[in-house]
């Protein structure tokens, strides 16, 4: 059984100081509200959408012990479905996003059902294979998806409220609640009886089975939930950009989000946000910096993180914090 966690002695203590329990979300919310004042609003939205994507992936990677290398399938297909609903039915965008997310979950059901039968490296490969098939469909079905050119001109309909529909600054605030709800949902899932079972499956699958848990079923549900949250993020992303590119379905998108999750810290949820922020900002800054070797930096950072800070940025910070905390305690 492959489980991607640290040795037990390093495992984070679940007990949290009550102060932190409120300070963290409050700080996070403030940061989310302030973000479009600090960075270009569409970039701010990219950060939050990708953060939810990374969190959804972490639900599988960090909390169930499954590395999916095919999550682009759900991100991208939801983006396309959201875009198509918005284009053809002109409904307010949250409704279209919801439709995309539901589609992602429906797609995830058969894929998850088959994939969870395998674990570890095999799971990664199988999800990759399925994602390639979805990519292929998006690529071939160009009447619907626009093929290589992408789905252009996705409208941003929102009850006729002009500023939201045309100005990305206001749109950010209209879309933010959807993404925050997604994050809250992830938090709830992790801290639910179901989440407890997921962690037990990650730590020791045979033992969980001996306790009577139908492990495959739990994994499938986790997979579908993760796909749903991914779809939510992908849908908002599509509406924000006003179009959907085929790259959203490409395996490199799956790789990018794994990168973000690992960079931020596996099994932390907050790490996804940190990872997405750092990655997007880095790409954004480098795009107009005159330095043209972004992968050189991303790749090196990634190697360093895997070699030296396996807990990721957030995980390392939290670990240090807790170490100091426990040292102070008698």
């Amino acid at each position, binding site marked *: 059984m492959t489980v991607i966690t640290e040795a037990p002695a390093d495992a984070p203590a679940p007990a949290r100081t009550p102060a932190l329990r409120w300070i963290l*979300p409050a700080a996070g*919310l403030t940061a989310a*509200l302030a973000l479009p*004042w600090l960075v*270009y609003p*569409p*970039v701010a939205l*990219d950060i939050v959408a990708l953060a939810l994507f990374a969190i959804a992936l972490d639900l599988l990677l960090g909390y169930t012990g499954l590395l999916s290398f095919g999550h682009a399938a759900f991100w991208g297909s939801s983006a396309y479905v959201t875009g198509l609903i918005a284009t053809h039915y002109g409904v307010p965008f949250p409704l279209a996003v919801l439709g995309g997310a539901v589609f992602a979950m429906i797609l995830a059901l058969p894929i998850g059902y088959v994939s969870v039968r395998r674990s570890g490296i095999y799971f990664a490969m199988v999800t990759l294979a399925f994602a390639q098939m979805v990519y292929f469909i998006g*690529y*071939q079905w*160009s009447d619907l998806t*626009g*093929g*290589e*050119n*992408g789905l*252009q*001109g996705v409208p941003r309909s929102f009850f006729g409220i002009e500023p939201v529909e*045309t*100005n*990305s*600054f*206001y749109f950010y*605030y209209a879309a*933010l*609640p959807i993404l*925050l*709800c997604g994050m*809250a949902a992830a938090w709830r899932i992790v801290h639910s009886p179901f989440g407890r079972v997921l962690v037990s499956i990650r730590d020791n699958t045979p033992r969980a089975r001996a306790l009577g848990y139908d492990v495959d079923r739990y994994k499938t549900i986790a997979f579908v939930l993760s796909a749903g949250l991914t779809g939510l993020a992908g849908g908002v*992303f599509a509406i924000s*950009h*006003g*179009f959907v*590119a*085929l*790259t*959203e379905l490409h395996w490199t998108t799956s790789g990018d989000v794994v990168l973000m999750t690992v960079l931020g810290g596996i099994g932390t949820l907050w790490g996804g946000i940190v990872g997405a922020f750092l990655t997007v900002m880095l*790409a954004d800054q*480098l*795009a*107009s910096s*005159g330095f*043209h*070797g*972004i992968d050189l930096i991303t790749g090196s950072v990634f190697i360093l993180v895997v070699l030296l800070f396996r807990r990721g940025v957030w995980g390392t910070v939290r670990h240090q914090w807790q170490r100091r905390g426990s040292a102070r305690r008698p």
Partner: protein
Amino acid sequence: MESKRMRAGASALTMALLLSACAGAGPGGGGGAFTDDKLVLAVLNDQSGIYKDASGPNTVKAVRMAVADYQQKYGDKAVVTKIEVTSTDHQNKPDIANTKASELYERGGADVILDVPTSSAALAVANQAKNHKRLFLDVSAATTALTGAQCNKYTFQWAYNTYLLANGTGKTVTQNGGRKWTIIYPDYEFGQNMTKSFTEAITKAGGTVQESIPTPFPNENFATFLTKAGSSAPDVIGTMHAGGDLINLVKQFNESGLKDDGVELAVGLMLINDIHSLGVEQFAGTLFTDPWYWNMDAEARAWADRFLAETGTRPSFEHAGNYSAALQYLEAVQAAGTDDADAVIAKLEGKKVNDVFLRNGEIRAQDHSVVHDANLARVKKPGDVKEDWDYEEIVTKIPAAEGFPPAEASGCAMTS
């Protein structure tokens, strides 16, 4: 707890909305002729990926050359003194192109965006241009959708499109005796469009397309496809591949020995950098449409010498196209006396131009396609190469009226 958080979020949202309304975000509609008292030309292209050599960083230098030429020409009479050229890498990702275009218009003060390779990225940028009512001069993207179904007032296609490539190569090669064709194309929008255009052009010229074989994209192994294509004994094999796939295909075509059977290879889209990187030997004899070749006449050559001094390499047609687009834009600004997009467009539309790049050029008002004479070229044999980058021999000129579709046929309904 859930609902409490939601309520807090909602009130924060209202507050933020109010605040920002007061702040009045966004570029103000200043009264002067030039926003921020300067002109910003933004190059948005692939600075690191597969299209880097064909356009990339050297395009920025070409645009700077245009600015220098403009300033030298008008000196004190120039309507604007401060001209900036910025460069942004879209990494060939349409979503990045999309965000960056919107940021360039909104925050970067860009008056015009130039270049933008990859059709999907260019279409996204065209949409942003329309929304922001600023100019976009496409050079590197070839999709006819930009001047067809998805055309808009603020977007111009400067250098070429798939129709030109097909009509140039397909028609001319057929008229020169290559009557039986087999086409191999990458199975995506660009390849399919090219194949359709080629088939029409070939049929019109009296030839036949025996077979069209789709291939995956990207693809490395073309051996089977070539065997299949060769089995119907065509005069010409036409390939619609580009970049790495094209190199794969050409290498394997040469190795297949089809050349010895007298089968010619015609390439849908080829850039001089492709020949340079693979070596002239591999491509020798290949026919293709080149919208512009650095050594096609003295004027082009003079400019190419300057470019060589600037960059250390010879220009591709995309470099020259960007130079031309920037120069003509600056001329239009000079004529309009403002950077207001609508006023500049009024000066551009319908203008007949000749410059380093455009021969018999016309900036068509109906579909914003910039039409001009192009060339059918043949790759030289290694023995005929006299200097570096001396790779092409011009077979024939393709007049603008034949190379580009008539405006009525473009399917463009210029609205906004």
